């Protein structure tokens, strides 16, 4: 990696770290809030699948008429 690229990468890390740490409590809860409960909410779904959501069904109803 060139020197300029390295400097940019370091700058980016600092910038994001500041945010991550700034919302540290938030960030920690995101792991629990974002991943675990939503997965638990849809245990039958494949991990990488599209979930059929309410608006999916609605969209196709709308499209039909």
């Amino acid at each position, binding site marked *: *990696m*060139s020197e*300029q*690229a390295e400097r*940019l*990468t370091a*700058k*980016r*890390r600092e*910038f*994001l*770290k500041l*945010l*991550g740490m*700034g*919302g*540290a*409590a*938030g*960030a920690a*809860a*995101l*792991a*629990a*809030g*974002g*991943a*675990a*409960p*939503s997965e*638990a*909410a849809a245990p039958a779904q*494949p991990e*990488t*699948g*599209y*979930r*059929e*959501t*309410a*608006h*999916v069904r*609605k*969209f*196709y109803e*709308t499209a039909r008429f």
Partner: protein
Amino acid sequence: MSVASASVADSTDRVTREIPEEELFRARLYSLLSRLLAAAPDAALLAALGRISGDASELGQAFAALARGAAAASAADAAAEYHDLFIGIGRGELLPYGSYYLTGFLHEKPLAELRDALAGLGVVRVPEVKEPEDHIAALCEVMAGLIEGAFGDSAPLTVQRRLFERHIAPWAARFFAELEAAKTAEFYRAVGRVGRLFIGIETIAFAMTPSDELDRRAT
């Protein structure tokens, strides 16, 4: 919602590496936004979100507002809100699709271009899903997957940047701002605020990534 299974074709030339904490933070935030925009939160997710706290920064304050909103809402409230916002009678208050924001219509050229871009990344919809890929929840899920390596390996920042700048940045901040101001929203206004701020953060952070040119020279 949305997306995807990995292609195996190009996975061999990718290198497994540790994902830095600050990049994981981005992935988690994309995942959370994807989850909340694909469907209304259930009671468990609301409870988890209610425990978030934020510092004095703008994003921290947005997290705090999200937590307050989550603590104040029941799953039924959130479901009703989601319905009014994104489903509605006829249509919801908002249409969270890139093509709609960019052209005024669904299923236009931006969707076709996005499909090409996703195909190039080896990301495809699972067969049973009919939802267009330019739904904001789908795009957030793809970004989270690229960061975490759900589609083979953690994608280089230049790859993430290209998808973000071409297919998300041109409209997502506008969508999140509208969500933040939505008449029928309460809990989801806070989601809009977090999303709007995050898109701004991503825009700045991507400007700090080395260009494709530099990256090519490096490899």
